[in-house]
């Protein structure tokens, strides 16, 4: 049966005000059954108030082989972190 069904990625919003977070994947024949399966598989312990399902095929992912060139160059740009800057005392509590 699994062969006849496609893969879906599941995103759950744990509480109102928070954003949907990826929690896992599942097999389902279409979007309606995918939502139901997500409810049954991933919200068994009150994990959320809203579910998104997205066809896994619709996700374009970065290539792990390019991780070095993608992410390493930011390591030395420490001035992008707020902690890089001295806050003048006059600004007070931020």
């Amino acid at each position, binding site marked *: *049966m*699994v062969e006849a*069904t496609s893969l879906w990625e599941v995103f759950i919003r744990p509480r109102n005000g928070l954003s949907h977070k990826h929690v896992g994947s*599942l*097999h*389902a*024949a*279409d979007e*309606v*059954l995918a939502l*139901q*399966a997500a*409810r*049954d*598989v991933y919200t*068994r312990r009150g994990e959320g108030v809203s579910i998104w399902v997205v066809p896994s095929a619709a996700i374009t992912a970065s290539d792990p082989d390019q991780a070095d060139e993608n992410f390493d160059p930011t390591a030395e740009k420490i001035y992008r972190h707020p902690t890089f800057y001295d806050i003048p005392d006059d600004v007070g509590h931020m």
Partner: protein
Amino acid sequence: MALFDAVLELADDHLILGHRVSEWCGHAPMLEEDLAMPNMALDMIGTARTLYEHAARLEGKGRSEDDLAYLRVEREYRNLLLCERPNGDFAQTMLRQLYFAAFMEPYWKAALESSDEVIRGVAGKAVKEMAYHIRHAGEWVIRLGDGTSESAAKMQAAVQELHRYTDELFEESPASAEAVEKGILPARADMRGEWQRVIDMVFREALLEQPEIGFPQTGGRGGLHGECLGHLLAEMQYLQRAYPGAQW
């Protein structure tokens, strides 16, 4: 004791069907359904527990919910025949669930007006669970009925097999009739319209036909069951019979 019997009927429906659905645990056609079906089974067994506890209190003879659930003999069970029907294939299990939930959802909705506080409490929780069971089972019935030629044949065969048990849903026993009169339980016949509306809607999309039933099967409320209930009870009661009072 009429109220005790009437509550027991409802409890038996939920325990027996809950046990049936739980038989799929570990055997479902896919992992997703292997979680979905025990979820549904637990909904129904949870409802049964509260109802047995309530029945035991109404009886006032010191019996516990376990005594009622596990230590009666076959003829003392009052469940609908539909609830005890074997799982068959996945199509049969989903159709049985749709038939039951499409009845119980409007039933519990009406029971929100019950004069009995426990019944109102059970209804408040169960009405949401049954709405989900309708959706889950209904979507599968549609996809199998309007699926491949093999799935459509199996779905129509499930209808042929199970439709004859649906009339019993609307039958009142002497005990439940008394509970209806006292405003404790809703009248079962009142659910016919809403049940038919949901079944028609699903069947239309599923390209399924409802057969003419010449001889509806009934008798569960009087303790007249099919052979299959004995086998179910043998498995379900085994632990309490072999180890009386076992706790875990």
